[in-house]
């Protein structure tokens, strides 16, 4: 498919650049905290993939739904989730967006349309399809966007979602973030053929974007969402990207051998979406100082939030037993 959507204007580009930075700064912090033994569990970082979530979510409002993955921090923040509430959650604090109950793999903000990161690979497919059905019934142009990885694209629910959503013409955008790996298994070993080709048998249009170029993601996803919002049914978008960190920050502790070459990682670091975003800004006439100012501002703001989060209160164990059922809390 050709990218014929118009280009993001400078204001939009700046906003997306800043969002990417927020994700990056937050996750650099979380990674460092994990390595310092300050987090209760390992984190799956989105570092290197920021352009994908940000370029897509730039088209969404709070009323649109997203579902996310185990690698969900980026989607949460891209969709407008509060960095403080997310950091506090991952620090297991009561200020956390899930009150410390969910943690890194389960950050959710239902009021902002974020139906949650998900520890089950492919777990979002059914949920997003249901949310899209809800949106369809409401008939007010809402969409549901389902983020999932290339590994998740081999779960059967992917096909089930395409089949049903196509039949019911649901406003569902399926976004496969193709980073070439599922855990420590290379995509070629786990995936037969090209994922993008799986859409057409269901009469679903397929879109592809450079997942490390926020402008390209923005353009292509804009077109895809236009189609989805128009009532024509679902679309599949594959963004090609890479995680430049490990599968999970804990992996160095348990892996006995490397699973990818340093050159491979370096080749993708060279395509860092944030640096490419900065270059786009410069091309668009944004001054170098302004870009630096944004970087400094984000850095300071995340640092401040992180500090606040660390000193927030622990959650109250008395709440646990009432948390399974809403009736129990009443």
């Amino acid at each position, binding site marked *: 498919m050709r990218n014929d959507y118009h280009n993001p204007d400078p204001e939009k580009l700046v906003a997306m650049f800043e969002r990417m930075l927020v994700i990056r700064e937050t996750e650099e912090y979380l990674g460092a905290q994990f390595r310092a033994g300050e987090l209760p569990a390992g984190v799956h970082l989105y570092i290197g993939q920021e352009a994908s979530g940000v370029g897509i979510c730039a088209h969404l409002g709070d009323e649109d739904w997203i579902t996310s993955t185990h690698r969900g921090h980026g989607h949460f923040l891209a969709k407008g989730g509060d960095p403080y509430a997310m950091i506090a959650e991952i620090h297991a604090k009561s200020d956390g967006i899930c009150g410390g109950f969910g943690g890194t793999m389960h950050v959710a903000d239902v009021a902002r349309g974020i139906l949650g990161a998900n520890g089950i690979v492919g777990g979002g497919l059914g949920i997003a399809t249901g*949310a899209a059905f809800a949106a369809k*019934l409401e008939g007010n142009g809402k969409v549901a966007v389902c983020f999932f990885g290339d590994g998740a694209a081999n779960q059967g629910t992917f096909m089930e979602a395409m*089949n049903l959503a196509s039949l019911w013409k649901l406003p569902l955008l399926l976004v496969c973030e193709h980073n070439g790996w599922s855990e420590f298994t290379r995509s070629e070993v786990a995936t037969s053929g090209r994922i993008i080709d799986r859409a057409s048998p269901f009469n679903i249009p397929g879109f592809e974007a450079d997942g490390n170029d926020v402008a390209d993601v923005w353009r292509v996803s804009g077109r895809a969402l236009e189609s989805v919002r128009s009532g024509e049914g679902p679309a599949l978008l594959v963004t090609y990207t890479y995680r430049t960190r490990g599968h999970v920050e804990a992996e160095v502790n348990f892996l006995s051998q490397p699973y990818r070459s340093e050159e491979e990682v370096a080749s993708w670091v060279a395509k860092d979406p944030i640096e490419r975003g900065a270059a786009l800004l410069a091309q668009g006439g944004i001054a170098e100082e302004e870009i630096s100012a944004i970087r400094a501002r984000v850095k300071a703001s995340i640092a401040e939030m992180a500090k606040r989060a660390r000193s927030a209160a622990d959650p109250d164990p008395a709440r646990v037993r009432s948390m399974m059922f809403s*009736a129990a809390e009443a």
Partner: protein
Amino acid sequence: MAKRRMIQAINDAMFEEMERDPRIVLFGEDVEISMFGDTKGLRERFGPDRVRDTPICEALLTGMAVGMAAAGWRPVLHMMFANFMYTGFDAIANQMAKLRLMTGGQMKLPITIMAGFGGGRSTAAQHSDCPYPLFMNLGGVHVAVPSNAGDAKGLFKSAVRSDDPVIFLEPGGRGGEMGEVPDGDHLVPFGRASVRRSGSDVTIVAISAMVKLAEQAAKQLAQDGIEAEILDPRTLVPLDEDGILASLSRTGRLVVVDEARDRCSAASQIAAVAADRGFAMLKGPVRRVTVPDVCMPYAPVLERSVYPNAERIADVVRELLNCRDYQ
């Protein structure tokens, strides 16, 4: 009071509730024509938006129910036979039962999943499971198991009005049986057992289709001068532990009748509660009349050999009362 078959009573409940609340949406395989009759006529009345046949893809359907509920709707998902809930088990166990806690209470999940369950009709191993023990262990789903038309209607209405996920199981063999259904907006609260028969010698807790067998057994026992009290828990999550213990305090003896396989059954849970909270009242062992740990064979003669029946229940009660150790 009206006489209705259980399946009609559920159908009535669906009509009334969908009429009342426009956010209730029913979907599932062949719900339009309705295999069992419980969803009959709903498509014609409420239209294609709110009543929908789906493709065969249970793994997606249970996930969709979560997504719809999270997005503010009240889905009712019909899974036909309870065995097919295994095909859609992931989203029930990993999402539906957990998301409320995982999101720190943000997510409200008013979901009803309905299915027929149980054996006794030669439907063989893959159409006869009683999976409620599994759901009971998940922690985050309510489980309703009506035994009669009136309760079926009232529990169904409570299920669709609940803001939490409910697994609503219809005893497969009982859809055709007539029963009294109270008039009006009949609601049966969750977690309240019903005393189906009063008696002072033994408490029989019987689940769903087992109530009828327990009643038959009680009649036989009454001829021997043994008066059994029969309790129908109606919901297994929440379970009316206090109601069961109150009956136990009157009788001192407990038999639990459950169509599920024995290991980790609802019967075992109830027995465990009795052995813990009710120990001081127990005059004898807690017996379980269950299906041994086998799946249902096809041949009627084989199925009968493992399916609970009135004689087995009565024999267990007699043994319990006759055993000298526990007089």
